[in-house]
């Protein structure tokens, strides 16, 4: 916990890293100054794009003592304002799951290569990023904690499957190797409370370690202070739960 007599400093900048298939993509990276050791966090941006909120979230993780990286999953779709690039990806039906998984794995490997990271890395995402966080935690070895904030389409009908998203993430639940935190809004339509319950049932069935919190009077994206979906009380509590979960699972050095 921060005290007013403590030194605090941070480095935050755009970097490049290797993502899926070894492609070079850019990423936003923030870390506390000092020798560490720091746990690592990958922050997966939401469907609207690699935007200012995600830069802020990345710095928030650094402020709380994490070496944090947010890869630009839309790097291959050209450059412009985050909205224009996000709209282009929206029109294309999103990015392929395999590509997103590869990019997030690359971000995890980048963190693990750093001398001041304590050997533990978590993953956080909201909206489509929440879905990606769960998906990558199931499919890639190397994550020690995962946070899925209102990730829609974890549960998918056969009709919703596409070439880019060929498997519903819920079908990978049995492979989840790390604890999962899920934050959801009871008024959300994607994921609906019924879909969240279905996912929870699957986690129970496979004996996974998880915490799910369903917030009343909140819908999709209740952390986003720049959107009408923002819910102050639920957002404050949600961030507390995120950091309590990460402290518990990432703060101890890996053996």
């Amino acid at each position, binding site marked *: 916990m921060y005290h007013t007599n403590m030194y605090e400093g941070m480095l935050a900048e755009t970097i490049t890293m290797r993502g899926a298939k070894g492609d070079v993509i850019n990423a936003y990276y923030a870390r506390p100054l000092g020798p560490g050791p720091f746990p690592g966090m990958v922050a997966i941006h939401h*469907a*609207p794009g690699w935007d200012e909120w995600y830069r802020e979230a990345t710095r928030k993780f650094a402020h709380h003592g994490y070496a944090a990286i947010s890869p630009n999953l839309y790097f291959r*779709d*050209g*450059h*412009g*304002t985050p*909205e*224009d*690039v*996000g*709209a*282009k990806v*929206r*029109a*294309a*039906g*999103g990015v392929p799951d395999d590509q997103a998984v590869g990019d997030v794995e690359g971000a995890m490997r980048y963190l693990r290569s750093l001398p001041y990271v304590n050997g533990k890395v978590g993953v956080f995402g909201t*909206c*489509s990023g929440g879905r990606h966080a769960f998906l990558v935690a199931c499919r890639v070895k190397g994550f020690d904690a995962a946070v899925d904030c209102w990730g*829609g*389409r974890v549960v998918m009908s056969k009709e*919703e499957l*596409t070439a880019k*998203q060929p498997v519903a993430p819920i079908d990978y639940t049995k492979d989840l190797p790390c604890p999962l935190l899920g934050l959801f809004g009871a008024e959300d*339509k*994607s994921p609906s409370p019924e879909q969240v319950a279905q996912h929870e049932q699957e986690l129970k069935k496979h004996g996974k370690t998880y915490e799910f919190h369903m917030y009343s009077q909140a*819908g*999709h*994206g209740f952390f986003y202070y720049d*959107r*009408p*979906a923002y819910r102050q009380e639920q957002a404050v509590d949600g961030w507390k739960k995120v950091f309590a979960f990460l402290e518990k699972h990432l703060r101890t050095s890996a053996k």
Partner: protein
Amino acid sequence: MCTMIVQQAAIDGSGKGTQGWFTVRQINVSYDHPYHVPLEHALNIDFVNEAEGPGARVAVELSVQSARHLVQTIRAVLARAEAGGYLEGAR
């Protein structure tokens, strides 16, 4: 986006974006998260020219009711133009 409900169509026309007029080649119509209108989901229409990059975009985000009004209005105007004989030979 979270619904992934989207459809594209090729079109011919011009749109006025932040850098002025440009040729639009495609419309991307989605029912998904908007960027600006204060709704969880909206009917989003992007008039774009992908050859000119992501910034060649004219965007509108509409409520469902507004989107239906837009469709009805376009149909009504085209019907009047057709009735008046203005569409003969039009592309």
